[in-house]
């Protein structure tokens, strides 16, 4: 009887131990685009009207940053411009004293783990796509980000030229669109993700 009793207990323990708590997840998880945004809650986006944007997408590779002018890059830039204009902002040239600036980059590196603080500066071969003539960027908020960047992450950053600190411009909004090359995505998928980045940040809207 003791043997049977122990068998029952052993079976129970075995069942618990042998069954993984992690279910088999769908492969679609890796293929799908994910959109992560964060804005500075202390910034009143309604106070600004004029913005400028880089003229193309910067590709960040293991060998450094590469400015890529292509039809696809222009489609992405135009999608951001469309969203900004729809929120009431006015696109101006860099020389026209804009209130806000927008950078657009795509990470094309292999997976690299980076951590805050210092991730921005410490990233191998990565420097800001456009410093706009200032001494650099800083984040006025603790950025939420993927601790491990995979290849194929699109980064959109909005900086505020009206709040310089030590000649550095604060990033007041950032958007990461992740999963660009883990599966075949159409241009429409990516422009849709750009739209989603703005949709989930309703604070970006001018009152002027």
């Amino acid at each position, binding site marked *: *009887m003791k043997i*049977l*009793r122990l068998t*029952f*207990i052993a*079976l*129970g*323990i075995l*069942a*618990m131990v042998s*069954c993984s*708590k*992690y*279910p088999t*997840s*769908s492969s*679609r*998880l*890796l293929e*799908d*685009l*994910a*959109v*992560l*945004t*964060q*804005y*500075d*809650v202390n910034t009143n986006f309604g106070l600004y009207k004029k913005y400028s944007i880089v003229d193309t997408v910067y590709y960040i590779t293991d060998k450094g940053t590469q400015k890529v002018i292509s039809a696809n890059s222009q489609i992405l830039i135009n999608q951001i411009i469309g969203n900004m204009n729809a929120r009431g902002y006015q696109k101006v040239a860099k020389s026209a004293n804009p209130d806000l600036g927008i950078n657009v980059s795509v990470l094309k590196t292999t997976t690299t783990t980076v951590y805050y603080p210092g991730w921005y500066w410490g990233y191998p071969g990565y420097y800001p796509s456009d410093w706009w003539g200032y001494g650099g960027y800083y984040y006025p*908020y*603790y950025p*939420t980000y*993927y601790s*491990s960047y*995979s290849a194929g992450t699109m980064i959109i950053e909005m900086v505020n030229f009206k709040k310089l600190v030590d000649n550095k411009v604060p990033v007041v909004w950032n958007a990461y669109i*992740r*999963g660009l090359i*883990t599966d075949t995505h159409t241009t429409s998928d990516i422009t849709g993700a750009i739209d*989603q980045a703005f949709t*989930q*940040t309703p*604070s970006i809207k001018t009152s002027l």
Partner: protein
Amino acid sequence: MKKIFIILMIGLLFAGTVNAQDEGTKSSFGYKPSSYYSFGWNTLWSLGDFNKWISNGSPAGFNLGGRYFIGGSNFAAGFNIQWQRVWQDYPQQTFYGDNGVALTAMNYRFTWMVPFQAAIDYYFMPSKMVSPYIGLGIGGDYMEHHLLIQELDIYKTRWDFSLTPEIGALIKFGAFSNFGAQVAFNYKWTTNYIDFSTGTKLSNLQMIQLRIGLCYFLR
């Protein structure tokens, strides 16, 4: 599914009633165990706020239990230890976090739980081949709630307090057999909660469970 449970429970209670009518004439038939151990397959369906997190039912569960009859009474006290997992795929959804954070992605959710409960049951006819019972489990659960987005695994772990009223039946394989089966149906209320998205707290997770298992009776 609920209809099946109700029919099943009525059937079990009816079987018990038939046995009860026989008891007067065959009182020496069968035996009352001093204790028993059970090992069963557990299925779960979420209710209430828990259903908003994962609406799928889950067959991935096991339960290990033991009961000891108190003196000569029909009451038995014991324990239940369980292992259970529920999971579900969701299409793209937006989660809003603190400090202006928002995340939109297809997500995969699962909750893994290990309840530990003390239990007390009342058995209507413990010496019969079929003995319906009612019981109450009181204890705590260890739960992990996972939100998987791409290769990210965002999770929260929580202990809770839980109550589990249960009805069921023990079915001996023979009047004097040491082996038998158990069918149990319960409702579980917990203080556990899920709060992945700011302003959206899913609290007092509830569920119903059906358990089918084997028992070993000690005389």
